[in-house]
């Protein structure tokens, strides 16, 4: 029964801490705090309508597409500037895993193999491909940055309802 009390006290203490804390859940690496009013580093991998790189735009200065627009709105909400990085999914996922990016988009769905490298948002929209199979679309965030993820999930849900 001793262990009982200790565990429940610990749980109560944690929940109390959560109550007073400014941000719960919190980011182990502080992504949300850093991005807010700072720079959002976004990896973009071109994929049909979701992410397009206009030809002749010269480098990675401009990214278009549905997801690129969503990310722009999200950055505005956080008062952040966007630093675009383009590349293949592999390169971007690897960069995200090692802390070089805050967000990766590329028309990915919830079956993405990169779930070992990154956290997935809630599927925020659905689409059907030419073979008729359903895709539930997600974006990738750094593993365990739960405050940042929750903020993005909230934004995506709200923008989906609008």
């Amino acid at each position, binding site marked *: 029964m001793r262990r009982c009390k200790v565990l429940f006290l610990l749980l109560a203490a944690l929940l109390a801490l959560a109550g007073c804390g400014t941000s719960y859940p919190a980011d182990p690496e502080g992504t949300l705090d850093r991005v807010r009013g700072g720079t959002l580093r976004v990896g973009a991998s071109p994929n049909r309508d979701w992410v397009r790189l206009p030809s002749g735009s010269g480098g990675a200065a401009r990214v278009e597409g549905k997801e690129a627009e969503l990310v722009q709105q999200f950055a505005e909400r956080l008062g952040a500037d966007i630093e675009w990085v383009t590349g293949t999914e592999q390169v971007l996922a690897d960069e995200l895993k090692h802390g070089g990016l805050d967000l990766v988009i590329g028309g990915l769905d919830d079956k993405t193999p990169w779930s070992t490298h990154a956290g997935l948002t809630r599927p925020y929209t659905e689409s059907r491909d030419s073979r008729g199979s359903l895709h539930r679309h997600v974006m990738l965030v750094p593993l365990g*940055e*739960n405050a940042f993820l*929750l903020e993005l*999930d909230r934004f995506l*849900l709200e923008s989906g309802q609008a």
Partner: protein
Amino acid sequence: MIRTNSTQTVRFGHTELPPEQQEALRKARKYEWITIAFLAASTALVYAVLGNSQAMKAAWVEDLLSFLPPLSFLLAARVIRKRPSEDHPYGYHRAVGIAHVVAAVALTVMGAYLIVDSAIGLLSAEHPTIGGFNFFGQTIWLGWLMITAMVLTAGPPIWLGRVKMKLAEKLHDKVLYADADMNKADWMTAAAAAVGVAGIGLGWWWADYAAAILISGSILHDGIRNTRGAVSALMDKRAMTYDDDAPHPLARRLDAYLRGLPWTREARSRIRDEGHVFHVESFVVPAAGSMPSLEQLEQAREACIAMDWKVQDMVIVPVAELPSEFLPGPTTGGER
């Protein structure tokens, strides 16, 4: 033997159970079904909110494994009703022991697997990711749901464990005992998982793995303890009380009775626990070297069987001298 006028007599092999044990068995089956129903609901609930938490995964696996003891109890309770047959002259009681071993090995293997899995997660510093979920148009952190699920599933097993513990004593059933014991400790799993998830919320990613290692450690501990108990029971360890705490007092009572008979000088027994019932071999040295009559032997045997419903098979062997090679140690009762 007491005969009840109920519709159907409940038996363990050829032993008819006394009314108290019949009632306990009926209740035990009822509570094991309740346990299974509860587990079905709780595994479904926990699975729905599993997310990426290692501690939740460990708690879920423990829930899944908790199906094994009640299922093996219910299965064994069926099999051991069979009477001894030509091919199985000792009856089918060992079904209980086999069910116990299978459940215990499953616990051990899963506990070990989860410890390794959690340790790898901890060492590779893979931060558990828990996002939001849609709650009637509001996005709420999924961690809250996990903690709620854990708090909801923590309570009922404590109550189930207490009830089943009493029945296990009445029925002398070690599978039921092991099950009740695990149920009673189950709330610690739930609390540890809740603490782990609450820790993730504070940004302590390692709290999740620490909780998971704690939970898998408790699964492994249960597994090893049960495997040890079940295997030594199958190896004909001397009869112990239902919680393996002390040698069963029946041994002493049997010997005292036999020794007290006017025609005996010395008596000692060896007893094996077949699951619920005991098989007893008693060696008696007749007084003054004269053989007892068949009638005396038969009377003694029946008196011993009537002493406790657990005495099922009883063999009395008149001997010139107690065979020490069959009866190691000073006394049957294991008095220390």
